[in-house]
């Protein structure tokens, strides 16, 4: 049965990520749905223990002044994965590239506060990016589960980090002011009056063009044991933002 994952700006990413992580894994070579993995008794106990510990971890984060969201348990993985959605797809992979660590000020402060508090040991961080379907339509036919994609493909899908909107707006405003200043200088106007002629007009169109549907979400995973592939881990949303 085809899973349906809808995403709108008002929706909570928690629901989406929970659904994504629940999907069984498939490889690009075998697109057909794979058998869901059933944990053995020992692993089930590990998962149960993680489930019990999760509320305390959320409380520990709260004590550090940070609200994190518990998603559930899922196995750790090393590859970057592409998950299917209805309106947009998602790329989810381990955080290990320089572009993964480009973070706006507010979220940076949140993560720094969490790291400095030392109340939580978060051994593995992952980054989720929303990707428009147009970018993935020629790549694979997605069924019930995610497919592993190589790092280059993932980087192409996610695209470069968008330019900061504030800087773009500043550039447009200063450009207009500079144009007016040069025009005034050309007409031999008084230099002191030039800056006063400047009119700050917000470049709405330029900024609106940047408001793409890319939603980076930083996820933290706390494994039951070692931080290794296949180890069950409790997953949390640490921070999320719209570019």
């Amino acid at each position: 049965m085809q899973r349906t994952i809808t995403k709108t700006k008002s929706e909570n990413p928690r629901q989406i990520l929970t659904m994504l992580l629940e999907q069984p894994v498939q490889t690009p070579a075998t697109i057909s749905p794979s058998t869901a993995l059933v944990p053995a008794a020992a692993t089930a106990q590990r998962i149960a223990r993680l489930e019990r510990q999760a509320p305390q971890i959320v409380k520990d984060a709260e004590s550090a002044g940070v609200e994190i969201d518990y998603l559930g348990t899922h196995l750790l993985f090393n590859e970057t994965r592409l998950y299917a959605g209805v309106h947009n797809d998602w790329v989810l992979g381990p955080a290990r590239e320089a572009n993964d660590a480009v973070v706006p000020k507010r979220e940076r402060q949140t993560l720094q506060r969490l790291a400095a508090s030392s109340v939580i040991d978060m051994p593995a961080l992952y980054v989720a990016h929303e990707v428009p379907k147009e970018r993935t339509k020629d790549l694979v036919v997605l069924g019930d589960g995610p497919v592993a994609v190589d790092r280059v493909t993932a980087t192409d899908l996610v695209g470069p980090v968008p330019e900061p909107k504030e800087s773009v707006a500043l550039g447009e405003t200063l450009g207009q002011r500079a144009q007016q200043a040069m025009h005034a200088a050309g007409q031999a106007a008084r230099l002191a009056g030039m800056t006063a002629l400047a009119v700050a007009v917000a470049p709405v169109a330029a900024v609106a063009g940047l408001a793409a549907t890319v939603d980076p979400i930083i996820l933290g995973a706390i494994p039951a044991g070692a931080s290794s592939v296949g180890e069950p881990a409790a997953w949390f949303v640490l921070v999320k933002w719209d570019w």
Partner: protein
Amino acid sequence: MLTVKDSPYDALCRAERRRDGLQAKDLDTTCDVEEDRITRQGRADKDINRVRISDEADRAMAGVGNAYEWTDGERGTYGEPVDAWDLGAFAEKMTPHESRPVTVPNALRRAGAAAVLTTVGVGLVLGVWSLLTGTAVAGTWLALGALGALAALAAFTRAFSRAPAWALRAIYASLIASFLLPFAVLALNII
């Protein structure tokens, strides 16, 4: 002579103070090294504890070893380490998004070019004037300084094509400054 030269006692005191300083520096460095060692040891201990507690809990609850398996046999015991940053490493490597360079709008690029041309023009006029009169014009250093700063800004922003927020402001300020430069040089020569 007595007032400017150290007495042997003063020299001895100074040497003692330096020796005391060396001891403090040595202690400070030792503390840094020890602090770093304790931090790293702490992290390693945490990892070891987590694995140990997990393994012991498994044995206690299920009477099985530290291996865990999936019924379809695809997973064994511990796999390869996950190649991902932990929270501490991520926090250290974070870079601010708001300070990333953006494409400079054409109007502002032209402003940067106009600032360069104006400053070069002022510099040329001052140079020619100095050659003709045989004396350096007051304020030449100002024009040369402005030109140097503009060259550095142009190099940093790749000919005013990509710039972070502070450099955008600097390009605009350089245009205004270049317009004010002739008046500043004039004022320096009149006063």
